[in-house]
């Protein structure tokens, strides 16, 4: 079969790629320009104005290491949101993996009664929209005092994340042979050593994908954080949303660039692992 494409096909692929990166180009132009008036295609002057206004970069003249540290010490909103997003993401990722590991092992290795029902219950949050449960949950969280707390936001982030982590890890354990563990045990390794030397290396690649994925879902979460955080927990998506609605393109673009950075980084790392058969991939449809 002819492996080379016709010229016209190649050009349409290039055109498609160009159209796909247009928003990214627009983000960078908006974030590094000042007074980018219509109909200019390329801004007349480059500017750090947006970054200065967000208090991420000091004013001209004080752009030294000290100037940066002094500015960041004033705890600008973007840094606060960034730290919140990172902390919530890390906590939720670690907790979800710890909770999901034993369950995934059992689901992947054993057959038992109600297994199908349990899997059905577990995956239903992947199809039903968050708005279906969060409105009801919100009132419960208010009366329990979880509303507006870091704990409450982490807890509610577990709902969209748990199904994917459990599914991804179950897939790993379904192809895993526990006999190696018995061998290690008969050779005198204790439980901890067995896990550390046998189980962990075998499941590590899957665990990395599950972890990156869990982090990304938490990182992109808007509605759940907004409702359960009750205005007290500011994260990057909340900041992007409110800046975008208030209509300042330069500021929106600058915050968006910070917001998408980990996403692109994760794509670099996972492009090897991500394939259509992995349940983690199907999760990307939900971010």
């Amino acid at each position, binding site marked *: 079969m002819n492996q080379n494409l016709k010229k016209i096909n190649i050009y349409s692929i290039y055109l*498609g790629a160009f159209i796909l990166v247009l928003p990214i180009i*627009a983000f960078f132009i908006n974030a590094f320009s000042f007074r980018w008036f219509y109909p200019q295609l390329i801004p007349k002057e480059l500017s750090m104005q947006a970054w200065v206004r967000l208090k991420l970069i000091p004013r001209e003249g004080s752009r030294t290491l000290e100037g940066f540290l002094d500015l960041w010490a004033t705890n600008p909103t973007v840094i606060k949101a960034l730290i919140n997003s990172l902390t919530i993401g890390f906590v939720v990722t670690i907790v979800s993996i710890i*909770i999901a590991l034993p369950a995934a092992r059992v689901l992947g290795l054993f057959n038992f009664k109600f297994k199908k029902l349990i899997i059905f219950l577990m995956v239903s949050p992947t199809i*039903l929209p968050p708005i*279906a449960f969060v409105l009801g949950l919100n009132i419960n969280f208010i009366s329990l005092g979880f509303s507006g707390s870091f704990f409450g936001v982490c807890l509610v982030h577990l709902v969209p994340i748990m199904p994917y982590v459990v599914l991804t890890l179950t897939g790993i354990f379904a192809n895993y042979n526990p006999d190696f563990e018995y061998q290690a045990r008969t050779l005198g390794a204790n439980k901890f050593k067995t896990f550390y030397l046998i189980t962990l290396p075998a499941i590590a690649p899957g665990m990395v994908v599950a972890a990156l994925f869990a982090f990304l879902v938490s990182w992109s979460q808007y509605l759940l954080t907004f409702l359960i955080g009750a205005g007290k927990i500011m994260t990057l998506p909340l900041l992007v949303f409110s800046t975008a609605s208030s209509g300042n393109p330069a500021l929106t673009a600058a915050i968006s660039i910070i917001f998408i950075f980990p*996403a692109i980084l994760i794509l670099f790392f996972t492009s090897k692992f991500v394939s*259509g058969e992995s349940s983690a991939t199907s999760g990307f449809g939900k971010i």
Partner: protein
Amino acid sequence: MGGDKTKIILSITPPLLIIILLFYGGIFYGLVQSLGYQPAIGKYEINFDAYYNILFSERYAKLFWTGLALNLWVSFVSTFLAAVLALFAALAIRKTFFGKTVCNFIYSLNLPMPHLVVAVGIIFVFSQSGLLARMLAQLNIISSPGDFPVLVKDKYGVGIILAYIWKESAFFFIILMSVLQSLGENFEELAQSLGANRWQRFRYVILPLVMPSLFSASIIVFAFSFGAYEVPALLGVIYPQMLPVMAFEFFLNPDLNARSEGMALSIIIALIVMILVIIYFWLTQTRIRKD
């Protein structure tokens, strides 16, 4: 075996408990509130007023039915177009050509991108003074921003559809690439040696082979776009309004009575998604039985 049973129960319980308490608990509580049971404002009787109001009352019915129509329109069109575009892109990109790796990366770029950012990107590119309008102005095709069609915050949901196509085509693309890779080209070569032309190879060889994955990915995308909030909240208009945005606004309404309507709306959204998924499973089950 007794030990195994305890182990299974102990391992399964924590994640299952989180899902049952928070997810199903939330839905159940929403359902109860949608039926008018709101102890917070001294309402204890159960009734279907909120549902009746949304579906039939003069105040909300028009809002709801136009919203539902917009929801179906946006979800169907964006899912269909994203799937078709991704299919063509995947079929073209699997061949060797200059810049294949870069193109592959760019076509997958939107996969991990949050929907919120994609929506902002659509504003930057497609608004009347956006990047596209500036390009056309440079080419002297349009003169003022007003000459550029309203594609963002328009009443037909074009901006919302564009955002979902941008985002979900990457999802379809990744899935199709891996299916096509695992299939290889043996089937097509066989068909070609039997005299099938390009169209026939596409219609009778490739399409039936990728259809199952394409179909199940479509269900995920459809269900998501039907119930998601961020994109229509940023790119939509007040009327007609997509249902998730409407539900959320009812809920945030200072009038606590509107809260029941908001809950009822979110339950209706969940029900519609559930019915569609059941139809999907029923369709695939009958197809498997036929085979």
